């Protein structure tokens, strides 16, 4: 049932790749910041694993 969604995501692999790489690098940069805790909760209480 999620086949169609997954197919659309896979079809966008080429366009997604640079965005996912930017996210990886941003994560790395944040983890190396002074005092950083080298992730936000998801599907949890959203007003604040």
């Amino acid at each position, binding site marked *: 049932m999620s086949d169609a969604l*997954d197919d659309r995501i896979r079809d966008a692999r080429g366009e997604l790749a640079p965005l996912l790489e930017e996210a990886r690098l941003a994560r790395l940069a*944040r983890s190396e910041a002074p005092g950083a805790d080298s992730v936000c909760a998801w*599907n949890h*209480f*959203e007003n604040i694993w």
Partner: protein
Amino acid sequence: MATVNGMRGVSRVPAYVVMQPTTLCNLDCVYCYLPLRAQDRRMTVEVARAVAADANAWAALDRFSVVWHGGEPLAAGREHLGALMAPFGPAVEQHVQTNATLLDDAWCEFFAARGVRVSVSVDGPEELNTSRVSRAGRPAYDRIAQGIAALRRHGRSFAALCVVGDPRPGVAARLYEYFLELGCDTLGINIEEREGVNERPNSHDPESVRAFWAELVVAWRADPRIHVRELEWSLRYLGAVLDGTSGDLLPGELDPIPTVGHDGAVVLLSPELAGFHDPVHGDFSSGNVLDTPLSSVLAEPRRTSWVPEFLTGVEACRDTCAYFGFCGGGHAANRYFEHGRFDGTQTEHCRNSKINLLEGVLDHVRRP
């Protein structure tokens, strides 16, 4: 198709507990869901001690947090909040979600001394912050800004929580620019929800919502300093689909997310249910820490009348929704306050904050 393995049943051990030191809030935000925010019903130290007995044990085994939530936690005062925090050992991480209006040098020193992580509620620049008002209906923005300035003066890192009432193109870029200037290191964006005593409609044009999220991606890519919760998880999910690991992205069980109210009553899974009453489910509580240890309350979640109905709803989401692997199922409070029951499936909240979020990110990458 990827089989989603996670979110089956409720874990007996939480990753955090939400604590309500007082029901009182000094603000009267238009969209607030809390029913008792004009009253000052305070948690006793006895309640905090009862929770700490289990929290300290959990923290010895794994990372564990206590979140002081509202009402406005700072409205309890430093002396009382300090007494409530005292039973929790140093291994327990402490977090506070505050409207920032009471933050000053003394509060910053209080948090620094205890290693408390602070998150502030602010909806963006003054012109987008008009729903956050005092009890007299006056804009709270200047006081919020003063409180955040105190955090910055003390060199305290902080997170921000932003409620968006009208998600549309033009808003996201302005918001991200604002939060970059504000200096928060983490940002959560909630599209306003219809829950609790907030009955304002939350249905939006899906194209506008998708465009809002797509615009946020553009703004974030230009300067990705902020950990934006919604984008982080969208990108994690999209990457997992490409890697063939999307079925394992969600945790094996739902976190019980126990909320301990001012009186010691425990509400599971959705803190927004605390303080409400239903003809069938009563006050939604699963017990009280003043007569039952929290770990015992969490041992049998299905004994709480509404939890089996909610878990049926989670399985209905798994069976019927293409986005389940990303979302993990609609939240209990959103189901209840939108559908009047816990086993319904797609909510406006799902559409605004999960489905059109993921589609907005995809729109961004597919843009010619």
